């Protein structure tokens, strides 16, 4: 088990959300869209060097800016 941020995860890797960093506003936003502790997500891609990260969470596909992606901590195998 390893802890990485969404930005560090590799494409096609699966993992479980274990911590949301950042302020309450961001945490709420993530929570409202279904990214919460314990949720399983799959990273689909990472555009460019510091570009947005695309993930699949449940049946939704979400795109997160690079900065937000560094604040979502994932436990991967």
């Amino acid at each position: 088990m390893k802890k990485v941020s969404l930005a560090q995860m590799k494409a096609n890797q699966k993992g479980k959300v274990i911590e949301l960093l950042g302020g309450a506003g961001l945490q709420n936003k993530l929570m409202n869209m279904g990214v919460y502790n314990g949720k399983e997500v799959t990273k689909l891609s990472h555009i460019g060097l510091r570009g947005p990260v695309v993930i699949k969470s449940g049946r939704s596909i979400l795109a997160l800016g690079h900065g937000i992606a560094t604040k979502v901590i994932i436990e991967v195998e």
Partner: protein
Amino acid sequence: MKKIYLIGNPNVGKSVVFSRLTGVQVISSNYPGTTVEISKGYLKLGEERIEVVDLPGTYSLEPTSRSEEVAVSLLKEYPKHEIVVINILDSTNLERNLFLTLQLIEEGFPVVVCLNMCDDAGHRGVHIDIEKLEKILNTPAIPTCAVTGVGIKLLIERLKEAAPASRNKLSNEELWKEIGRIIEQVQRLEHRHHSFRELLEDASVRSLSGPLIATGVIYVSFKIVRFIGELIINKITDPIFSNIYQPLLERLTLHWQEKGFWFHLLIGDLINGKIDFKQSLGVLTTAPYIEFGMVLPYVISFYFILNILEDIGYLPRLAILLDNVLHRLGLHGYAIIPVLLGFGCNVPGILSTRVLESKRERFIASTIISIGVPCVPLQAMIFGLLGKFGGFYVSGVYMVLFSLVLILGLILNHTLTGYSPEFFLEIPPYRFPPLFMLLKKLYFRIKGFLIEAVPIVLLGVMFINILLYFKLFDIVTGIFAPIIKGVFGLPKEAIVALAIGFLRKDVAVGMLMPLGLSAKQLFIAATLLAISFPCIATFIVLWKELGMKSVIKSTLIMITISIIVGATLNFLILH
């Protein structure tokens, strides 16, 4: 029941349901945030007429953006027992949608659950046990497919069953756990292989295949817009104007002996004794030719292609790919949607900057749109006029505008205080809208264009003709002639066209037609028209959206840039 509110996550089809309930046509697209203005309409329920309000999409009752705030505050305007809330859900993504549903029920709103896009859910192998869901939620739940109208009648019939259901308040995390339990009971997923559609959805956001697909899509779209536009002009509008309308006008004016004020106003000048739609400048000659013969064909082809891209759901994917570039301009990827809409007409483009969160972003996006994004009518006229000198000049205009946008964005991003919020967006699945929906939307947009453009064009040309007839322009042209000639290298009559640009850009370029300008002069004039003052409609929207102070700031930027660019082009290009 005094009011019905439609609420739901972004991009679940609220506006389509709204159109079905009220008969009021509103634009719907396949991306979150299409609805930035609140639409209202009426539903006839027996003898009563009840107001229906279409709210902007929201993920929860704790708003995290401006449009969500609007939605939530409107919902609380009336006492709960006087309203009914239709909560619209995307059946293909029940889990995420239920978060808002449970919050609504917890808060004690009388809710009717509308499971929209049930046909798409079936295609994707998602099966929902509706009866069980009704029991768990303790509210009516109706499967619908608003695009085709399935289930809408039942939805209306069951509105009266809406009543507050009691539910304990849970924390957000408990709420998601509860939703997990509900999903296990009511949803069955058919296991199936990835469909071609899903492969395509994936490929368009991958870091390698994504940009390739985007380049292809943009190139093909541009080609098709030109192809359809030219097809309509060559096969339909030009034959109508030259074979039917011109002989008709000539017969009507045959016995018109005295060519005085009215002749000048309606027909304009005769070129070699004949009516020339491009040069006569009459209310019945050049005005309709500009609007129907040069601009309308491209408006049709542009919106046809934009509608397809919008409804399939490609635009948010383009937004992801462009996020990196747009970040340097102080925007994030989603700003590409207002920009693309701005290419149709700057007004809806600037209105849709409301999808951007901060005022700073909205200022940058609006300024960029009004300076660097030419609308379809202007582009059509540029093609029509500059096209004959070769693609070099036409692409030249775009190159100048594109560089301007980049430079301006970089400067604004560095000088304005504040920061650019980050991208966070749900990417909708690809959907293939039925042809009748595409045509309906096209009809709606063309109608909107005609209603807005035709009166202004006719009145504008009439106004210009009156001023020309009484030689009132001469005073103005006299004053500005040195600047126009010395700095921009244009004949002094061009000032009239530049001034008319404030009214409408297409008419303004039309005013250049009889002047017999050289390629270089046309190129400079067309570029100046694109950059300088937005037309009056855009100006009013800018004012409303940004406030007076920002508009003045934006206008000063515009004037400065116009002068710099006009002068630079004049001195750089030799012939």
